[in-house]
């Protein structure tokens, strides 16, 4: 039984006092200046549905899939409306009513949500095939010979955007249990979640995550085969599968045996930390889910919380100065309210000059699979983002979500080719891990301990 708009706690809808403070932060409203494309407008439609004044129509379905789900509105909202709950319930009801169904859409949804992103081994197999295609020269061949032009329109557009798969996936880089070199008297036990896209495309970020935790005295547990967290499913109206995946995650990692469960992908973390809510009506898992949510932390949040060690300057030579700008993943800053901590990480790295960019917390247009479903709006946001990032003149763009990472990388590819002047995209923990590495190479693992912060 899925929850419908008419069934949810009505006070969530009522909580919106339609003050309009969300409007200037909502990318789709700013694009069209029409109220239905705003959080306040969408909530009004949901309330009309709950009140029986409006039917769940195709037009409503289109609207809810035009919404990026970036949650910028939740940061701006003075009344604390739980938009994320409303958004997920609305999309689930749209799927249940089938107002957007078409054979093609159904097939794609089945393949992605029910097949690919529920079977981690299958996903890795597909990832391996894609890797072979890319490294064997077949991709280059197909591009040169214009064979890609034989692909249907949509795929042809997406083909150049396909992420570059890494040679090694997370389980080939990370042992199931890794202990810090110098074991502190009471080491912290943490579990690291490797993600799906992160696992195939950015396994090095997962490695760096483990490295920085080790460097801060944590014993790191990384189960080699992990299910998808279910965020893709919950955001796309498939709450049933999302619950099933959450249960599998809880079966695999018992939160009661860890000090923290670490996510390094903004989009996943935002969903993962709400397992308590997702499984609140599941007596077998409720308690575990509450503990899970309590311990689920973004890696930068956790590092700041435990007072991570500031890497010392390299003795090998003068520190290389690097200018860095930080793009905030929506689901890290709006979904999880983790905004200061990644910046604290960056500022702690010797030689890093942090340059703030305009609209740092605006969506880059990736938004899960939004860049595939709504290419026009995604493209507009991508350009807007790129303009702000380049305006800083920073050599490095730091960001903590694989979707944003790929979206920004792709925008650089199309506008700048692969020129040397284009900034590099890096996860903040990778920069931190490199700094620890440089420090180690210099044989001087000293540095200031930043006091634990309560400002989380």
């Amino acid at each position, binding site marked *: 039984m899925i929850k419908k708009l008419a069934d949810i706690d009505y006070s969530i809808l009522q909580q919106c006092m339609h003050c*309009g403070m969300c409007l200037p932060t909502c990318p789709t409203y700013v694009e069209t200046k029409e109220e239905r494309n705003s959080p306040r*407008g969408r909530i*009004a*439609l949901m309330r009309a549905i709950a009140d029986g004044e409006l039917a769940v129509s195709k037009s409503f379905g289109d609207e809810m899939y035009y919404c990026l789900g970036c949650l910028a509105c939740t940061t701006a909202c003075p*009344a604390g409306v739980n938009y994320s709950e409303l958004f997920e319930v609305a999309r689930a009801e749209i799927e249940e009513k089938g107002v957007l169904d078409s054979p093609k859409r159904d097939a794609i949804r089945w393949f992605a949500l029910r097949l690919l992103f529920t079977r981690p081994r299958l996903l890795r197999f597909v990832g391996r095939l894609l890797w072979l295609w890319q490294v064997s020269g077949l991709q280059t061949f197909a591009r040169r010979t214009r064979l890609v032009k034989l692909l249907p329109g949509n795929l042809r557009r997406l083909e150049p955007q396909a992420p570059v798969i890494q040679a090694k996936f997370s389980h080939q880089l990370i042992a199931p249990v890794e202990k810090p070199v110098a074991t502190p008297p009471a080491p912290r036990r943490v579990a690291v979640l490797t993600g799906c896209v992160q696992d195939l495309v950015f396994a090095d970020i997962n490695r760096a995550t483990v490295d920085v935790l080790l460097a801060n005295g944590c014993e790191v547990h990384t189960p080699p085969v992990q299910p998808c967290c279910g965020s893709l499913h919950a955001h796309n109206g498939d709450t049933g599968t999302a619950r099933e995946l959450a249960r599998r995650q809880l079966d695999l990692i018992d939160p009661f045996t860890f000090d923290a469960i670490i996510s390094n992908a903004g989009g996943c973390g935002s969903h993962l930390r709400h397992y308590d809510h997702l499984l609140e009506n599941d007596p077998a898992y409720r308690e575990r889910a509450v503990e899970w949510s309590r311990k689920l932390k973004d890696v930068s949040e956790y590092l700041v919380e435990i007072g991570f060690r500031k890497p010392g300057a390299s003795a090998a030579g003068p520190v290389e100065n690097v200018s860095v700008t930080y793009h905030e993943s929506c689901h890290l800053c709006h979904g999880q309210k983790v905004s200061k901590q990644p910046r604290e990480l960056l500022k702690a790295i010797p030689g890093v000059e942090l340059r703030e960019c305009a609209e740092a917390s605006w969506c880059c247009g990736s938004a899960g699979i939004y860049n595939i479903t709504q290419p026009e709006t995604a493209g507009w946001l991508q350009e807007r983002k790129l303009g702000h990032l380049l305006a800083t003149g920073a050599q490095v763009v730091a960001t903590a979500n694989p979707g944003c990472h790929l979206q920004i990388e792709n925008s650089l590819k199309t506008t700048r080719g692969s020129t040397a002047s284009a900034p590099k995209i890096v996860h903040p923990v990778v920069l931190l891990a490199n700094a620890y590495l440089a420090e180690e190479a210099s044989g001087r693992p000293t540095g200031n301990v930043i006091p634990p912060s309560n400002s989380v």
Partner: protein
Amino acid sequence: MNTPAPSAPGTALIAALQTSLGADQVLTASEDIIPYGFDGTATLKQRPLAVVFARNAAQVSAVLKLARLHHAPVVTRGSGTGLSGGSVPSTAAIVLCLVKMDRILELDTANLTLRAEAGAITQTIFDAASAAGLFYPPDPGSMKISTIGGNVAENSGGLRGLKYGVTRDYVMGLEVVLADGSICWLGSKCVKDVAGYNLRDLFVGSEGTLGVITQVLLKLLPQPAARQTLLAMFSRMDSAAETVSAIIAAKIIPCTLEFLDRKTIRCVEDFTHVGLPLDAEAILLIETDGHPAAATDEALKIEDLCRLHGATSVKRAASASEAALLATARRSAFSALARLRPTTILEDVTVPRSELAGMIRDVEAIALKHDLNIATFGHFGDGNLHPTILTDERNTAEMHRVELAFADIVSATLARGGTITGEHGVGLAKKPFLRRQLGDASYDLLKLVKRSLDPDNLLNPGKIFDL
């Protein structure tokens, strides 16, 4: 002259609007128009017949001419952030939305003026002025999204009223489209201009009932060079009131003089944990601005006066970041309150400054009498209170008590020589009380003006008063 087919209400008008503005600028589907059925006011809702977007005064004129021809009411709207129901659609109304007319047309640094289309966002205007080292002072709470046209139509206030006045004080000229579609310009860039009646001021605060404002010429000031921020806590509201009187008597006019009452302080502390004393009965946030030496000198004097009149603690910010921290309590007041109950009703009765402490006590007594949760914060400097009623619109018994309490608040305000609305406007929410405040003669004068400018009663009908 063509007359519309009587059989299909609205269809002929909608077709004509589509021809005139373009089909995509006329919304009629339920999913499109439901979100225009309300503004920022709690509990008021009415679905319009259609929503149209105009791009310029000529299009606005065309809309008004068609509306007149088809005898359809027109409700002009900016971002819909109003707090008195001023832009809630009248029955079967065309909502004329101006947010797409949002350009800043001219920044004149020689005459210190800025000219913008009505749909320009207040914050954008503030930022454009700031970038030129200039200052647009009115800062209504919704300025990040409110439109300048809406601010002028409601004569919006803000935190800087005491020293800098309200929107009216910055309007030098207006372009207005009248009910018959004629476009006129009122006012000029001249500081001195006494040619004819001051009709410009007639449209400031007219709430869309006399014409449609399409352009605004604003006065700007040089940016103050420095600002000082203080936060003072008091165990008695009367001590806070005495402090405010003493500051003014010392010939200091702070640019901000804000207060929180006991209930608001508790809610803010629960929400922000910034360490506010829970036994405090009042907190004052005070800011002075101007020449750095003057601002500092005033701040030091204010600090002394606060202590002299019984402040339990006074903090003066040493830096901009510290100032922001001190302002947190006031800035979070509304958010903290809005989270407590499903429905939040923000009022804006205003009394002469000397009556403010007494008025706050009145509100406390009224809350107790009707068993309601009412917290008060607001602008001490200009006597403008925001009694905030925390309730649930689905609880009919409680909503009835809210109505009674509101009537009591109005009575207490009028008894103290105050006004039913300091900055939100009359709209629908304050309509029942206007005659009592104005008296019959001036109330009828409003109607006389309305009838002569809008003889068919088509511009935002039913707002401010019923004809």
